[in-house]
């Protein structure tokens, strides 16, 4: 028996004013599965993630996360989703520990020293826990953002360009952690431009072009060059 999808999108559309960004997007992501969302700039990858995270409302269609409707039950969706967007949601003048304490308390998550220390250790930031985030690299800020997910343990992760601006070591670390999250039954939808590292953790690729999913296929044994060819073919056709 196949598990119910963690992310279930049918006929989703989103227009900003008269500009249609998403036209008729349908997509499923099941527990323990990672889908890489590819597409040219402006294809609507971030828009789709923001609708699923309840930051935006769809103009039409249905989007459900962990069984809850994103438009009608946003609070239930928010409790079950972790969003890593372009900003890492960090306050520059607070330390890593203070940032984590802030978000944990606000989110009603465990915020005792042990829980916070454990989450920072899980993202390998425990040694810089008392340093101000202002001194952190982009990769460290991203890891601090991921520490929130260690505390919250959401069943669904929405990642917008998670590998952008981070070095090889941080990328390898992120690969491993996303793999572990997936192995524990978590679902990942990840917008990426990368045909290399970004696809390492993915089970399927979905190419978004012209406001629709132009191709949704298992990654299987596809090499990065095959993915690039498919991308060129479908992204250009759909655009």
């Amino acid at each position, binding site marked *: 028996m196949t598990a119910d999808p963690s992310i279930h999108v049918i006929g989703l559309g989103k227009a900003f004013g008269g500009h249609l960004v998403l036209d008729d997007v349908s997509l499923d992501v099941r527990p323990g599965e990672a889908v890489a969302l590819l597409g040219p700039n402006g294809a609507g990858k971030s828009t789709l993630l923001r609708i699923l995270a309840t930051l935006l409302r769809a103009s039409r269609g249905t989007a459900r996360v962990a069984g809850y409707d994103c438009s009608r039950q946003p609070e239930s969706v928010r409790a079950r989703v972790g969003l890593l967007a372009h900003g890492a949601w960090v306050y520059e003048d607070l330390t890593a520990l203070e940032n984590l304490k802030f978000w944990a*308390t606000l989110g009603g998550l465990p915020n005792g020293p042990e829980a916070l220390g454990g989450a920072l250790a899980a993202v390998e930031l425990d040694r810089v826990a008392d340093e101000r985030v202002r001194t952190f690299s982009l990769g460290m800020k991203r890891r601090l953002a991921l520490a929130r997910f260690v505390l919250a343990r959401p069943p669904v992760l929405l990642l917008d360009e998670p590998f952008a601006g981070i070095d090889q070591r941080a990328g390898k670390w992120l690969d491993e952690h996303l793999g572990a999250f997936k192995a524990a039954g978590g679902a990942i939808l990840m917008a990426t431009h990368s045909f290399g590292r970004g696809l390492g953790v993915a089970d399927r690729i979905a190419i978004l072009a012209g406001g629709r999913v132009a191709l949704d296929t298992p990654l299987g044994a596809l090499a990065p060059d095959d993915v690039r060819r498919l991308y060129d073919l479908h992204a250009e056709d759909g655009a």
Partner: protein
Amino acid sequence: MIYARRAWIVLWKDLLSERRSKETLNALFFFSLLLLFLFQFTLGADRERLVAALPGLLWLGFILSGLVGLGRAFLAERENDCWEGLLLAPGDKSAIYLGKVAGNLLLMLLVEAILLVLFAVFFNLDLAAHLLPLAPVIGLGTIGFAAVGTLFGAMTAHVRARELLFPVLLLPVQVPVLLGAVKATEAVLLGEPLAAVGHWLGLLAAADVIYLTVGVLTFDAVLEA
């Protein structure tokens, strides 16, 4: 309890950030100093004119420095998209509003205390005798100002012309607070007992309750907009 803890953590974050960076406090201190120089040049040594204008000048100083401070209230939330984090935080968002109001209130009260000292020094005034009756007037006036300022600061945080729009929206709504605060301050500085300005204090308290209630009820929608 959880609600109070969430409001407290927002206040804690704002105060800690400000204590570390001192960005707003430094800016407001030098702004206040400049205002005082300006008032000094305008009024000169004419003591009569000064006494007549003092309540208005005091509140002009409070309001102008408050505008600068409140206009920056959501600056940290715009950095690194923390705004999204606040929006996606589960639970009643009004706790975030009350935490921000409390942080802005404390910052404004600190700046107002500095302004009072500067007024006393610059104009050679003995304000010490009036401090006790002035405290509730300033407190009530500042609560109203912080309540609306925080809400409008959130409303305009993502607007391109926010520096222009923020005071244009805020000042008309503040008329009852300004009226009550200036009138009550004038009476207190003239040596009238606090009981004599009870009606103005009543107006200030009513405005505070209304503004805070509106803020609590609408902040969620403002954050989502």
